[in-house]
């Protein structure tokens, strides 16, 4: 028996004929947090809503622990869903919101569970506050507590942090991960932000145009993106042509030693450069500097690669003029070989 959530060949279409999800197959074992990562409009939210039972399947099947669930109405699936903007019930206080999914439990147990969850999300004593008086971050904490309260067998999170500002988002992403792990929940986490996905998830599925391009652990995903598209979406770029010669890859920016993926052992390949792939080095390949800016204490030089693509070289911020060229080498740990020659 397969445990956890099984999504098999699922298709979701909307009236008018748009296909939002086009044959997705995924497996989320119990205890795993899977991130669905993709640009807006790629179908990740539609897939999540279909799993929750809010959109009907046009084709495919959904199973939990081997049992089909697609025939179950939303309220009998036992899956929790947290919305992007919380969707707290405005006419109930914080405790009333959290207790909503516990209606069938005895009163004492309900109160104990609400107390536990308020503590879990760091809002002790907020029980009788009106939800309209909370800040955006507090509202999302209440929304999380509300979806965790009935102990759903699967927690679905639909861009839970994207309505918050950047610093709060980064802080809450780590906290969310800890809370989900502490609750021992199995979860599917939809986001368009790769940093958030890498922070929260134990596995990441990259989606584009209704299809899953690649699903893997964050580490393997980062080191071996399945395609140029995936690489670019994870934050790689630019992607340059390279030729395998012996144990080396020859690139326009000089040679680098990388283990090419199996099957790409010879001939022309493509090499994706990570944000820190170009390291300034005496005697390296000289690149013309077009402009620069300071970001997070570093000077970011905008350079032009020999093939005409733009790239960024990071050097320590210091006063003084910026040179007209910078000599660089490739850092092997910040590049990834992607399949295929020039597309």
């Amino acid at each position: 028996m397969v445990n956890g959530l099984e999504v098999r060949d699922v298709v979701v279409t909307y009236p008018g004929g748009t296909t939002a999800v086009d044959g997705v197959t995924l497996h989320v074992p119990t205890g795993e947090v899977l991130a669905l990562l993709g640009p807006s409009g790629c179908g990740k939210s539609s897939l999540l809503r279909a799993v929750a039972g809010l959109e009907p399947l046009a084709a495919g099947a959904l199973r939990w622990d081997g049992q089909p669930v697609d025939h179950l109405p939303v309220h009998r699936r036992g899956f929790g869903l947290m919305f992007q903007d919380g969707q707290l019930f405005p006419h109930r206080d914080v405790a009333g919101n959290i207790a909503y999914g516990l209606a069938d439990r005895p009163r004492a147990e309900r109160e104990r569970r609400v107390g536990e969850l308020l503590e879990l999300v760091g809002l002790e004593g907020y029980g009788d506050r009106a939800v309209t008086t909370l800040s955006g971050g507090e509202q999302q904490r209440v929304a999380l507590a509300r979806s965790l309260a009935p102990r759903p067998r699967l927690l679905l999170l639909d861009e839970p942090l994207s309505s918050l500002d950047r610093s709060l988002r980064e802080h809450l992403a780590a906290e969310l991960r800890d809370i989900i792990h502490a609750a021992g929940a199995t979860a599917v986490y939809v986001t368009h932000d790769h940093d958030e996905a890498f922070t929260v998830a134990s596995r990441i599925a990259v989606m584009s145009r209704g299809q899953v391009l690649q699903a893997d652990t964050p580490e393997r995903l980062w080191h071996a993106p399945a395609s140029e598209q995936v690489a670019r979406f994870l934050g790689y770029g630019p992607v340059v042509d390279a030729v395998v010669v012996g144990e080396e890859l020859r690139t326009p920016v000089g040679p680098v030693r990388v283990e090419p993926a199996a099957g790409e052992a010879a001939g022309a390949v493509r090499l994706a450069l990570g944000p820190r792939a170009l390291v300034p080095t005496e005697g390296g390949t000289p690149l013309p500097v077009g402009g620069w800016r300071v970001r997070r204490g570093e000077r970011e030089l905008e350079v032009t690669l020999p093939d005409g693509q733009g790239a960024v070289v990071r050097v320590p911020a210091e006063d003084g003029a910026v040179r007209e060229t910078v000599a660089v080498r490739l850092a092997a740990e910040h590049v990834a070989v992607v399949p295929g020659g020039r597309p």
Partner: protein
Amino acid sequence: MGPAGVVGWVVAAAVPLLFLSVFFLWPVATMVARGFFPDGALDVGGIAEVFARRRTWRVIGVTVGQSLTATLAALLLGLPGAYVLYRCRFRGRRLVRGFITLPFVLPTVVVGVAFRALLVETGPLGFLGIDGTFAAVVAALVFFNYALVVRTVGALWERLDPRAEEAARALGASPWRAFRTVTLPALAPSIVSAGAVVFLFCATSFGVVLTMGGLRYGTIETEVWIQTTQFLDLRAAAVLSVLQLAVVGGALLLAARARRRYDRSLRLRTDRSATRPLRLRGPGRRPGPDAPAAAVTAAVLLGLLVLPLAYLVAGSLRAPEGWGLGNYRRLAGTGGANTLTVTVWEAAANSVRAAVDATVVAVVVGTLVALVVSRRPRSRGGRRVLGVLDAVFMLPLGVSAVTVGFGFLITLDSPPLDLRGSAVIVPIAQAVVAVPIVVRTVLPVLRAIDPRLREAAAVLGASPGRVLATVDGPFLARGLGLAVGFAFAVSLGEFGATAFLARPESPTLPVVIFRLIGRPGAENYGMALAASVVLAVLTATVMMLAERLRGDRMGTW
């Protein structure tokens, strides 16, 4: 939705549909059929004959002219009012907002009586010489509908993001140009929709026109009444009824099209921080930027709203024997020369009883309609069905209440539904008139619920029934107080259909007032004023209680 859910919603739709079919569609269709098919065949010659009459064309002209003029005037006066009362802050704003709503719920007969009292030759404005003229009727119609414009436009204006106008000013636009090019287009949907509803109310108004314009400025609505009751010309009445439906339907269609053109997603603020203090005085001794709007609004308030009502109250206190409560004491009697069959107090009791029954029926039927229509089915067919339902339940707004009343008389007169002389016929007719108002009050509240709120409840394990009770329920409760108030006010003041249906031995208050004012004698006239005050106080009290139950929102029309 499961099959059980579908069955539930179909039943919920069937109850109001059955009510509307039996008590509205059937009577109106029968009435119209009698005019068009007098001997079982379509009488084209007869219809042509009605249109050949000069009288018919005069009535059409008066209806359209009167309604258009009143609508334009209400919009022109209402815009500054919406600005002052919804965009500016000042002390007493709540009170003024509440006060301007009063005319809207006042019974039409009361409004007619109040304006007559002011404009008759012996009245304080008698020197204007406009008693019984076009201008007088228009003034009364504006009085009646001013609040509708102020509140519909104000509700949108209040939440309009001021930064768009600020951006225009920063680009060098004068205040007037910024208003004309940025704010006015943003307000356009609410202006068009307020205009359409005001036109509809003006074109179908009966009590005001009958008490003020008399026969000279008769509209289609009063003409239907005259043709049926005085000339017994059913053919003319039927033709005019259909004509009225066409005029009103055409106006609403044009408005819907205009609104669609203007409809775009507006940048609205959810808080109300867009308001700022009223600026009456500018630097130095010059008037502030808000002074013109405030002056217009004050003039409308005092001249058009306060004056007639104050004079009505004053007039009611001046009995033939001198100042005092003489007129009110006489309400325990039946008027000079026994004008009435019952005392005015008995009539008031009849009114309240009928209005309570009508309110219960209207709120039950109207809430069911609103619940059904506010669903969002996935299929296109389902959405189309709901669209048709929504429109069908608005029909009573556009059809002459007189037609409804007369239709009742000629259809509900044989078993199994023989309601002639029954005490339920008046409440049912009033409920038919009140249902659209209930729907229009409750529906926006239900439509404002984010569908994801219902989804959030469902994923937390709530069954469809519990979602309805715990998500729709609290919102519904908020809209319901106001709906009850409106339904009660409308039923209390209903005159067009009630005039036909009230039994001679149990007339309602508006019927009694109309009778009193139509009979000679200072005593009867004084009693009419006093009875009008009683009816106004009754209505205002009910509305105030209803508003207390639920903030200060009036449904979006």
